[in-house]
């Protein structure tokens, strides 16, 4: 994904930093000739406050969580969790065989994918429609982002009210002769969740698609106008290729965000959630704070981390970490 933005000169520098990755930060990577400001007197202490905080509140708990996944931990042993009995991989075995975890993984992944499948066309449509200047475009762009900026708990509370039996959505559907059944319980709740998630997250795809459209050079527009390309062909063969990168990014981040999304299903359905929307984060939460099976929950969380790691790994590979301007070196 990064290649399209790299000029030849940058590419070679990228390569060298890539090559240096196995033995990271090898000294030859640093600019040897300029041992100026950036070598002497580096204020590395400025990293300490943030670094310390992240180590204490993220890294330590992460390790703690992995350790806890091997303990038989309930509400009685939690206070003295250090002395709780160590039971090895039993929590993992129970999570994978005797708990709804696999079902939850399946639900989480399929809901994330289904929501992405709809948000991507919506986002592209929104971006294409607001790419050209017209009167009121600024207002429309602001409107498009409203669902994205509304807090998830507000979005969920509002849709929960609208989906109540007999409430506004039901009465609207009744007036056209449809009896929709229950939205917040039973098998249909899965689709309710997808609908609300689509509503809340299509503007993110829209934003990234818009940034992709803006990277289309004016010359490209001129060339296709000269060739007399019809609008559909122009979109399909000229403009869409520019969107591949941003949309791939939107897909990855969207998937990560959907799989991790706790607030929306939690507020929309409450806990205990109907089994059709017992997603991974909800299940982990309920196992901890409703059934008090802390060890089991830690094992579930660990398994979900592995699941997250797949898109995350792709994302980290694709992202351009460093700018063309290497620190220490002046252009």
């Amino acid at each position, binding site marked *: 994904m990064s290649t399209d*933005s790299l000029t030849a000169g940058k590419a070679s520098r990228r390569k060298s930093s890539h090559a240096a990755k196995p033995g990271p930060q090898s000294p030859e990577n640093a600019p040897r000739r300029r041992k100026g400001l950036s070598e002497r007197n580096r204020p590395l202490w400025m990293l300490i406050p943030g670094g310390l905080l992240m180590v204490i509140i993220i890294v330590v708990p992460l390790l703690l969580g992995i350790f806890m996944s091997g303990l038989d931990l309930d509400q009685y042993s939690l206070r003295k969790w250090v002395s709780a009995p160590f039971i090895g991989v039993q929590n993992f075995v129970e999570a994978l065989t005797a708990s709804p975890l696999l079902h939850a993984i399946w639900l989480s992944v399929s809901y994330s994918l289904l929501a992405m499948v709809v948000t991507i066309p919506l986002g592209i449509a929104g971006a294409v429609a607001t790419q050209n200047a017209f009167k009121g475009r600024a207002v429309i762009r602001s409107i498009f982002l409203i669902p994205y900026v509304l807090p998830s708990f507000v979005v969920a509370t509002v849709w929960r009210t609208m989906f109540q039996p007999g409430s506004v959505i039901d009465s609207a559907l009744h007036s056209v002769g449809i009896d929709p059944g229950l939205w917040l319980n039973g098998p249909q709740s899965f689709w309710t969740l997808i609908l609300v998630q689509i509503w809340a997250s299509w503007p993110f795809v829209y934003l990234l698609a818009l940034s992709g459209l803006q990277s289309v050079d004016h010359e490209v527009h001129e060339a296709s106008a000269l060739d007399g390309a019809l609008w559909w062909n122009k979109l399909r063969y000229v403009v869409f290729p520019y969107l591949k990168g941003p949309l791939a990014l939107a897909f990855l981040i969207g998937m990560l965000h959907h799989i991790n999304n706790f607030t929306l299903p939690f507020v929309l359905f409450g806990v205990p959630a109907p089994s059709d929307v017992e997603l991974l984060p909800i299940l982990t939460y309920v196992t901890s*704070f409703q059934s008090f099976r802390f060890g089991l929950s830690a094992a579930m969380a660990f398994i979900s981390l592995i699941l997250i790691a797949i898109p995350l790994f792709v994302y980290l590979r694709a992202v351009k970490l460093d700018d063309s301007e290497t620190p220490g070196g002046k252009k």
Partner: protein
Amino acid sequence: MSTATTAVGRRSGEDFRPGSKRQHEVTRLMPGPMLAIILTLLCALVLIPVAYIFLASVNSDIGVARGEFLPSTFSFENYTKIWTSVGLATGLANSVLVAGSTAVVSALMSIATAYVLVRYQFRGRLTILRGLLALQSVPGTLMVLPVFVLFSSAASYLGIQVIGTQWGLFVTYLTFAMPFSTWVMVTYLRGLPRELEEAARIDGASNLGVLVRIILPLSWPGVVVSGIFAFLLGWNDVLFASVMTRPESQTAAVALQVFGASQEGGAIPFYGQMMAASLVCAAPVVILYLIFQRYLVGGLTAGGVK
């Protein structure tokens, strides 16, 4: 991955010379009627639920339960009730306190971290950058239990009571806001020229002096963006707040969630109050966003995670 740089770098070139009709024709992507249809549909999709929040908040509970879109009765009394019934007065005060201090501290810490990461070469730099991205995606549900255990251990071993206070939330939000805020600052600081810093150094400024007197004033749009994202993280969180607060330290998000959940199974739920409280909780976020929209949109695509 070029979005990070394009979003920040290209903001100025966004419009193609407005007013020139020919340019407009050339860059056009779709026939006019088609555009109109798409725009109408998408605006309706967004605005109908948003309008409903307001309409239901001034409606009677029975009216909402009957499925009215336009209210048959009209009163603003829900907006006076929610402060005590939902507990929104304490909730909002706590939210402002926690999210606001998170925003300020996180912005200041992230600019220092980002400055070092952008301007200096050292061992582990790329690992830290990669780590910043990775940490943004660590699921909250994975962290909430161990953080809870860590904090309760702090109470039993060190005698520091963190659970149930605003401090616990503040520290947690601050930490989880740092990766994203730092990443936003990293992308912002890359765009700043070095010459001013070098001039200041020649005049004898220290590292801290350069940061405070040169970098900070130059990068306030970035600081605002990273601060706002930290604020939103604290404002929007339900997961940590639902586990680590007591009623008196509850944030607005939890207050609303608890109120909504407690309406189950009684007579007619207080829908009007729920909608009024939703609107009040959403208002600060939407206002912040409208004021700083230009900067925020660039920041959103830069870090890429909500």
